[in-house]
Structure formats: C-alpha cells, structure tokens
C-alpha cells in the first residue's frame, strides 16, 4: 500500500525529474523501507514533490499571483460591501446600488489583468528555462 502511494508520488513529479531519478528513488525506497520507515520516506516524497513543482518549476509565481488576487478581491470586496453612513443615516450597501456595482466590476477587471499578466510571465519563464537549460547556471555565475 505505502509502496503504491510512493509510486503515485513519483508519477506526480515533473517529467524531466521523474525520467531521470524516479526509478532510482523507487529502488532506494525498496532498499530502505524497513530501516527508515515507509512513512518517513513518504513524507520525503511529498516534500520533494512540492519542492520540484514550486521551487524548481517556478509554480510559486502562480501561487503568489493567485494568493495576491484573492487578497485583493477580499480587501476590495470588504471595502465595497461595508455599510456606509451619511449624515447619520446608514446608506444602502453597494450590492444594492447599481452604480457602485459597476465600480466593483471595473476594479475586478484589475484583478483579472494582474492574474493574466502574472500567468503570462510565469509561462514565459518556464518556456525560457526549458529552452535554455543553462540559463540558471549562467545567472548564478554572473
């Protein structure tokens, strides 16, 4: 059962990493399962999976963009939907005011622009790194 889970974890790794190292990682799993404990090896596999996708493949940019967009929507949403007072009277919330809803839509489009921009940057970065495997090395040396 644990071996099956480990194999599935290996399958979820990026193809380049999986192609190079998955067979040997599985072999090490089989060799060390008894001495190290299969749970510890599974945890190591999960950490490896997250590290490969988020750090090495740059998925953290997408995660940061998504988190930023959610935060922005949350903050602007709360601001726009807060009840307002004017001359001591509580004004209707923007949800009931068509003109303010229009403003909300305009601000929401800002979120979409940011998301699309970040996604485009991320995709360009991934393609650039895939086409130029030495780019990272040059950047470190420079």
């Amino acid at each position: 059962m644990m071996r099956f889970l480990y194999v599935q974890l290996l399958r979820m790794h990026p193809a380049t990493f999986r192609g190079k190292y998955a067979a040997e990682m599985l072999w090490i799993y089989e060799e060390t399962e008894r001495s190290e404990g299969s749970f510890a090896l599974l945890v190591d596999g999960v950490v490896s999976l997250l590290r490969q996708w988020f750090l090495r493949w740059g998925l953290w940019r997408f995660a940061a963009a998504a988190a930023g967009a959610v935060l922005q929507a949350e903050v602007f949403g709360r601001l726009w939907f807060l009840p307002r007072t004017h001359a001591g009277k509580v004004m209707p919330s923007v949800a009931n005011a068509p003109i303010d809803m229009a403003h909300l839509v305009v601000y929401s489009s800002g979120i979409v622009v940011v998301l699309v921009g970040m996604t485009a940057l991320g995709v360009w970065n991934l393609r650039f790194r895939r086409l130029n495997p030495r780019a990272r090395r040059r950047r470190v040396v420079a």
Partner: protein
Amino acid sequence: MSDDLKPFLPLAPAALHILLCLAGEPRHGYGIMQDVVEQSNGQYKLGPGTLYDNLQKLMDQGLVEEARKRPAGDDPRRRYYELTGFGRSVLEADVERLQNVVREAKLRLKPST
C-alpha cells in the same frame, strides 16, 4: 579565492555532504545516502527526494556530473555521480571557509584565564 566560486559559497549542508561523498570516488545515490550517515555519525540523514533534488541542482551548476564508467554487471537503475574539477574547487573553498570559522570559534571560546 576566485570570484567564480563566490556565488556558490557557503554550501548548504546537504550540498556539502554530497560533494564530500563524491570527493573520493564516483558513487550512486544510495551509496551517497549511506556515506552521509557515516560522515555525520548518524546525525544527518538525506531522504531520496532531498538527495536527488540536490544532485540535480549541483549538476545544473556544473559541480557534479554523471560518471561515464560504472562497475560491470551493476543494477541498471543505478546512476553513478562524480565531482567535476569545478566542483572540487568549490568544495575546497568551502572547507577552507569552514576551517577559518572553526579557528575563529576556538579563539573566541577559549576559556578566560
């Protein structure tokens, strides 16, 4: 120390242990894991995920490469890795850095008379 080496220093603990393992002879992944445990008297253990992530990074940086020669009749799943000349220079520079740290620490921790 050459300016080329500076961006690689200080080495992370995992990278330092891996480079030390490979300083003697080419080794496969499992051999590196076992050697790291020996080197550190069991205080530092690498899981396969951590090991291969670091190996990939070290290979990208040109410090380690896959060994061309391998023992005959060995399990085909095993890959052997060895230090490059550049990797050896980085390792030597980091060991020198650590020696300076230890020298300084000994001076400062000397019991006052």
